[in-house]
């Protein structure tokens, strides 16, 4: 607990602080790119990118290892990873554009085949006399514990560069995500923009390899944007929020992993992000699950009550079990299904209100459609007292005529 506090306050030493900052910058960048990718509805493309880095990593490791005897050289490994990720991305594009297979099959096939080939190359490495082999597995699930300070600085610098790039291009990217056709009419080269977005995504994934590992880096590009979506409808706000949530997840994850020896960083960052997502998913007042569920139940109760009351008013039988239950609970019906005086009064009110709404819809069809209310809200909450009075006046003669 105390170690965690010191990690949280950046007092656990220079190395840990740099690693923490690097991971935060990276996760912020991933959250931003991820938002654009999510809005472009291609969230799982990053899954293909990350898995297809493995053969490039392994090949770079072999080449560097043959030259200098030890394969660990972060810049070379990242270059190799980027090259094979680009190849994988190209393969996904080609398969989904030129064959009848969907993008889903293309992504699944490419990520698994590339990964499998990477595994084959790793067995090649295992038969070679190259040191630093255990370093390679750290790219699978991530490890910041043994990270060199130069590596952490490189990651932080790249992540910062990416953040800046995205701030510069944010408007073009947003336009692309919202309405690619419109963007095209505005003279934007959407093909190049798509490429730019994918390159940014690839860069984030490749830089993130060392921190979270190649399987979990996907999470950083998906979870924070999805969580951010719960809090805002405004795209730029969503980008900013995703960056913030990502950074927070990185902060929590890295500091937690310094608490005990052998706690893997990647999974902790991902779980921290998931926790943030869970809170957003459950408790967001706008789109959260609890709010949705409550709104659904309220609507259902209103509809059933209204239908039940109208049935009482028209002296029709009620078949629906839920309607009967709600009516009884309100004291509108007796156990044997006969309406109580309270129920009869409520039924008269409901019928009257239904008539007012019907008249309103007839007089102002456009208005009624625009408001899209179903007439379930008491009319007094929607219309002014004068408007209701006018409706009552019109209704009165027809009432009398009955």
């Amino acid at each position, binding site marked *: 607990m105390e170690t965690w506090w010191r990690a949280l306050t950046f007092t656990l030493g220079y190395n840990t602080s740099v690693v923490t900052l690097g991971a935060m910058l990276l996760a912020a960048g991933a959250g931003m790119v991820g938002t654009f990718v999510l809005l472009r509805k291609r969230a799982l493309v990053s899954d293909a990118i990350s898995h297809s880095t493995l053969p490039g990593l392994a090949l770079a490791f072999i080449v560097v290892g043959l030259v200098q005897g030890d394969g660990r050289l972060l810049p070379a490994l990242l270059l190799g990873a980027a090259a094979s990720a680009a190849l994988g991305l190209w393969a996904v594009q080609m398969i989904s554009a030129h064959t009848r297979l969907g993008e*889903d099959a293309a992504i699944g096939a490419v990520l698994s085949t590339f*990964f499998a080939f990477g595994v084959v190359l790793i067995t*090649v490495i295992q038969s070679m006399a190259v040191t630093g082999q255990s370093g390679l597995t750290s790219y699978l699930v991530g490890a910041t514990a043994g990270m060199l300070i130069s590596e952490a600085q490189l990651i932080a610098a790249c992540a910062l560069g990416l953040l800046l790039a995205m701030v510069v291009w944010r408007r073009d990217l947003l336009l692309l995500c919202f309405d690619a056709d419109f963007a095209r009419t505005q003279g934007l080269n959407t093909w190049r923009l798509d490429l730019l977005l994918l390159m940014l995504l690839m860069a984030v994934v490749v830089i993130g390899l060392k921190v979270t590992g190649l399987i979990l880096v996907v999470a950083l590009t998906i*979870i924070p944007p999805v969580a951010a979506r719960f809090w805002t409808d405004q795209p730029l706000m969503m980008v900013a929020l995703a960056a913030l949530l990502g950074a927070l997840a990185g902060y929590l994850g890295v500091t937690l992993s310094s608490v005990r020896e052998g706690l893997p960083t990647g999974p902790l960052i991902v779980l921290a992000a998931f926790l943030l997502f869970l809170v957003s998913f459950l408790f967001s007042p706008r*789109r959260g699950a609890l709010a949705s569920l409550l709104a659904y139940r309220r609507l259902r109760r209103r509809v059933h009550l209204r239908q039940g009351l109208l049935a009482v008013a028209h002296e029709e039988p009620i078949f629906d079990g839920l309607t009967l239950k709600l009516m009884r609970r309100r004291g509108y019906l007796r156990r044997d299904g006969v309406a109580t005086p309270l129920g009869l009064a409520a039924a008269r009110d409901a019928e009257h209100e239904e008539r007012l709404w019907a008249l309103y819809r007839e007089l102002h069809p456009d208005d009624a459609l625009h408001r899209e209310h179903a007439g379930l809200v008491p009319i007094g909450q929607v219309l002014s007292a004068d408007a209701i009075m006018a409706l009552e006046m019109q209704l009165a003669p027809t009432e009398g005529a009955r």
Partner: protein
Amino acid sequence: MTDFMTFSLVPLTVAVIISMTCALLGNFLVLRRQSLIGDAISHVALPGIVVSFLLTGMLASSAMMLGAGASALVTVAMIELIRRLGRVEGSAAMGVVFTSLFAVGVLLLEWHGATGVHLDVEHALYGNLESLIWFEGTGPAAFFDPVALADLPPQLGRAAWVGLAVVVFVVVFRRHLILGSFDPDFAASVRARPALIDLLLVTMVAVAAIAAFEAVGSIIVIAMFICPAAAARLMTNRLAAQVAWSQLFALVSAVLGYLLAGHGPGWLGFDASLSAAGMIATLAGLILGAACVAGPRRHRIGVAREA
């Protein structure tokens, strides 16, 4: 010959069974444009196994299968909840769920790594087909020797049972599967229970992924689900023919991949062997690549589904 029986017979058989089983299910994943469910479920096999191991303390088939089934159902339930209640796009919901559950698996594995578990992250990712050695399989006589047969690696029996179950499932529910893949609304209108069939399919995928887990790991199995079936889709416009092609591709990639991984380096003069699981999947991917370039039915003809 003796060497082959001891070291290669079981791994090769397991590879063939798993490969063909996964390809059979893969046909429906590809047709439903749900390949990524296969991706998600096979990632989630890891936490499923780890949790069932932590609960029962052993790697028994039954516990693993239960763990796999449970984790698959949890995954699907979470994806659907997030998609419906949170109104999140399906693939994004999937990404949220499977990465998080995979993270749980890795975390638990590393946490308990020191206790000498017969499981580690590398195994979970690479698989280890080569470890399925039949020590008593010293000659043809071993096929009739109960003692030697009892020594067969348990993975073989597990793969065989799962393969059988998948075949029975597909044969019995073939009309449900086809109808639900082509026209889910119509399927619901004739009470073919498309949602239930979806769930059953996902569960079968999970069970197959678990059977494959120890042999080929949780990521390479995705290639076995998707690549042969996707390649087969590019060969024909008839469903029965597509299934047949997928089985052929699965068989070829399993046999050839296994032999190439074991003997390929030797032919080149190196004294080493490569990952058989990796090689099988790589070959499956190459077959798909070839089909994409030259498959007779590679182009789309119909109008794609809207939305």
